[in-house]
């Protein structure tokens, strides 16, 4: 199977209120601010970005209880946002509070 794994730490900027899909599955949209130091071409430098993430099921339910500002590690994969929007979004399958 082709690789598609994302593991990234960051601060929860905000998340929406927990919703449910019509099928009854909890679903949550959140935004993560990442900051770290990375080495590129042998030179270390600070890195910063924000990204959109989406969770379903158990991680959605639990992340909904995490306050904005908390530091988390998100683990998941990338998928395009929608049929007409091929830009990726992180789907969270696991997370850790750090």
């Amino acid at each position, binding site marked *: 199977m082709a690789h598609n794994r994302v593991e990234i730490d960051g601060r929860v900027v905000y998340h929406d209120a927990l919703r449910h899909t019509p*099928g009854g599955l909890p679903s949550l949209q959140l935004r993560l601010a990442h900051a770290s130091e990375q080495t590129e071409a042998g030179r270390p430098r600070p890195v910063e970005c924000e990204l959109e993430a989406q969770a*379903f099921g158990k991680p959605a339910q639990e992340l909904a209880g995490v306050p904005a500002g908390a530091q988390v590690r998100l683990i998941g994969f990338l998928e395009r946002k929608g049929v007409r929007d091929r830009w990726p979004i992180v789907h969270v399958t696991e997370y850790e509070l750090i």
Partner: protein
Amino acid sequence: MKSTLRTVVQVALDTPLDRLFDYLVADALTSDVGRRVRVPFGKRELVGVIVGLVDSSTVPDEQLRAVIEIDRQLAALPREVMQLARFAADYYQYPLGPALLALLPPALKRAKFRPQAPTAYALTPAGQAYCAAIPVRATAQRRLAELLAGGPVAAEHLTGLRAPLRDWLNKGLVMADHGSASRLVTEPAPTLTEAQQNVLATLLGAADGFTAWLLHGVTGSGKTEVYLRLIERTLAAGKQALVLAPEIHLTPQMVERFKRRFPDRKLVSLHSGLSDGDRLAGWLDCLDGRADIVLGTRLAVFTPLPRLGLIVVDEEHDASYKQMEGLRYHARDVAVWRARQSNITVVLGSATPALETWANAKRHRYRLLSLTERAHAQASLPEVRLIDTRTDKAALGLSDALRKALLENLERGEQSLVFINRRGYAPVLYCRACGQVSECPRCAAHQVIHRHRGGYQLRCHHCGLASRPPEACPACGSLDLRPAGQGTQKVEDTLADLFPAARILRVDRDTTARRGAFAAMREAIAGHEVDILVGTQIVAKGHDFPMLTLVGVIGADQALMSADFRASERLFAQLMQVGGRAGRAERAGRVLIQTEYPHHPLYAALAAHDYPTFAERTLRERKLAEFPPYSHQALLRADARSMAEAMAFLETAHELGRERPEGVLLYDPVPALMPRIANRERAQLLIQSVSRSRLQAFLTPWVAALREQKNGGLRWSLDVDPLDW
């Protein structure tokens, strides 16, 4: 050996065979024509109606069976009604037996010829005197007296008191009550406007005999008052009046209005919501000539009325006048035919007449009368504004302009209506990842999302199948499934979020399914316990809500894209009706229509309240396309387990119609617009002609030939003057 002493009667039976059945009877009289009979049929016993007497039968004597019983308790169906049934059966290409039996109330189609128990009882004057002097210890009698003291009481409330009731009936202290004379005081008639006076003067001044009138009156112009005055004159002449109204329009309030105006007249209301007992009682009042006014839905058009003097068809454009199964009659057209046959006046009323009717008025087949202004002195027609949703984008279905208007109305304490002709939460469940939408497994249709017990449900509006929404997309497995689009439930939620203090009421088929629910809602609205109404077309028809001053229309554009050539006519009528709810009394009304086509001529005519311009333009299009009313149509529908089967039958039908009168056009069979419903594949064949008589001349032998076809599990039906595809 032929029997000479016995007569043969021809009996119409509710069987699919297009023929009458001969039976022997010892003592038949010509006056028995139109009476019910019980007859043996195979191993069963059926109820039929005698349609004729003959001296001898073509059936061999030994095969002729005898009538079991003739029902002579009931009056025979009058000749006029028998003729009406025959006309309907011939014209709509349906066997006479089932057509005739369909006219009878359900209770009379059962084999037992027992007279029905009355549904209510009332005290006689003797009874009222007696009640004052009932001994203290006669507790049952005292209870009965107490119950009856307030007026007629339904039989079901007297079940524990059968013995004293029977006793009182025998002594003449109580009598059966068929919903007769309530103790109402005649309500004075309102003063007529000048326009109403002119219309009435024309109507009343016309010669006796058959005339068909089209009363074209804008919403709120007081058409009903014109009907009431006409009825008044009809009753004064000792005649009966038949008033037809669409199902949804025939409310207890409308019945009350008629009762208040004619409190000492016998008014019967006939519709499918009645219990069999009430329906029978009302029908018998008509048959026996006791009823003065009959207020009913389409089925009432066939009611036997020996003194009929006037027929009124209110909201004559309404599609509910067309019966969609069995005898597929159009009650308005049958009413006109009946009026001509009885040589009486028929009045068709509407703010947006059917284009067929408008064309008939323009060709002077019907005489046109117009009421162009609202009757209420201060009421003017609402201002109609189009909101361009290409610039004012609708978020969750509601544009900024509409949100603002709703807020203003709330602040002024006036009522608003948001009209969206889609019930449920959202039209589809949509997979964001792959774009798949929820399909009904049994129909060629989407499943609609409904809120259901705190969660959601997928429901097919065609076959009724309901299921739990899936957790994952059946096509791609994605979990990101979302409701897409707007339904009444979702708009209700959105409005509740936007205006937390507003009292919001949703009115659609789901909320009005329970008996009495609709009446309760009307009261809540009239009592101003509601600020914003969200509703489908169910609220659009004929209700007066004086506090309602704003109507917002969302999702109307869809009908502009429909493949059905009548869609724009229907949309115009619907929007005119819904807009007509606004500002019917002192307060001015506003109508905001959200559209991406603000320059569409349909909307322009609507904004100008200009039905005639819309009608003329649409009629020109119809003429170019040779669509009705410039041609006459019949639609042969077939459904089977497979499309191939359905199409094969229609191909055969097409072949059988090879020889046909000139000017009758048979189109090729095609799959229906809705090609599958509940796992039945559907196809259709359109027959069209500019000449109604030539179309009829073709249909009769053709349908007879179709009936000869063996077709296994295939079902077919013919619809003359079809309204829906």
